[in-house]
């Protein structure tokens, strides 16, 4: 009883094993070993910041020469140099570490509301319903689309209705920036600490009418900046983080506390 069972199973197993071994020889597909090696080097978050569908495809495209060496934003300069070394190319120039920053301070305590919204808890849906519940046409809607798209969970929803970005774990993939229907998240140089947290292009009076902290274009920060890193752009002050020395003067002089 036991003998035919053992024999038949062993024969079948051998048969299938042989078939698979034969098939793997016969149908072998040549793959570039460098693809696998580069795949190992990448950050591996599958975030899509490079513009390709995941790390695997990016690795293939890099080997094929269609994707830039610096394509992997989360990996930064280190990964770019490693890829260059592997492919025998010159290492690209050092690029600065980037991070996402929210450009709005209009939390539920300071921004006025125009109406209540009880629909789908989604920024884009809220925006479609009469331009969103907030009176400011530039402010953060606060339904957390950025929180949901972040591949590394670096964004959390704060207590007062504004997302909080953990710049240490942010990999600057830019998904939140693309997701935000109001374009309030910028990918900026990570060494800049202070940013003008407002994007309202309205004149001061209109800004005051809808928000207690929005930029009113008073130019005090521009005048007081010791290194002239701040300029006005459509009624909003903008800090150039490549020049900014993080001295904090603008934070002190801003009457609206819009610079944080």
């Amino acid at each position: 009883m036991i003998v035919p069972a053992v024999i038949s199973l062993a024969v079948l197993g051998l048969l299938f094993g042989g078939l698979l071994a034969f098939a793997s020889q016969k149908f072998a597909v040549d793959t570039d070993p460098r693809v696998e090696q580069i795949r190992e080097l990448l950050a591996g978050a599958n975030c899509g910041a490079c513009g390709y569908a995941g790390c695997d495809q990016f690795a293939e495209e890099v080997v094929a020469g269609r994707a830039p060496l610096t394509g992997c934003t989360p990996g930064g300069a280190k990964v770019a140099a490693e890829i260059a070394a592997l492919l025998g190319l010159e290492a690209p120039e050092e690029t600065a570490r980037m991070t996402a920053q929210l450009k709005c301070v209009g939390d539920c305590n300071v921004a006025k509301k125009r109406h209540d919204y009880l629909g789908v808890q989604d920024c884009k849906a809220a925006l479609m319903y009469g331009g969103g519940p907030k009176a400011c046409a530039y402010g953060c809607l606060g339904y957390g689309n950025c929180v949901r798209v972040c591949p590394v969970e670096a964004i959390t929803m704060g207590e007062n209705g504004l997302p909080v970005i953990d710049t240490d774990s942010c990999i600057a993939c830019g998904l939140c920036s693309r997701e935000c229907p109001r374009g309030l998240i910028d990918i900026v140089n990570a060494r800049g600490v202070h940013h003008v947290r407002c994007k309202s292009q309205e004149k001061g009076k209109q800004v005051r009418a809808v928000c207690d902290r929005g930029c009113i274009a008073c130019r005090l920060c521009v005048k007081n900046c010791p290194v002239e890193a701040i300029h006005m752009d459509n009624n909003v002050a903008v800090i150039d983080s490549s020049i900014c020395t993080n001295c904090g003067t603008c934070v002190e002089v801003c009457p609206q506390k819009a610079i944080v």
Partner: protein
Amino acid sequence: MTSILVIFFGAVFVNNFVLSRFLGICPFLGVSKKVETSIGMGMAVTFVMGLASLATWLLEYYVLVPFNLPYLRTIVFILVIAALVQFVELVIRKISPVLYQALGIYLPLITTNCAVLGVALLNIQLKYNLLESVVFGVAAAIGFTLALVIMAGIRERLELVFIPKHFRGVSIALIIAGILSIAFMGFQGMM
């Protein structure tokens, strides 16, 4: 011909593999988040289940029955399904990279899909002939795809509605699956 049609529609609707026989629940919950991926999974399952029905039927009636070894059925079927899926994966990868990309990770996942083993064992239990077995296998997989796509469609909408915190994720999916299953019970006795 009528019996083939009865087998086909019976397997797709009346005895739907997922919603009536409760086979293949793991991919049903795991791969039903997007309609697109659920269709991919469905295609791969249909392909494998049709082939598995054919292979296991041949094995049963040309190996197990003549050698008087029916008690080895389950383990032999597992063996043949696993080997078959691997083989098919190798072949597809060589012959059609496009199809390989489309089926992607789902193909190897099917190795452990209990619906495939289920269809192979049911074919023997129900004493189907070769043609009926293959039709039953393909129909069962189409039923599986149907359930998967319906589920994915519902879950895509669930993403946008307010769900109480404790029901989010798998719990609401299981509740929906239960309601779907009750709905499919309406087909019972129609054939």
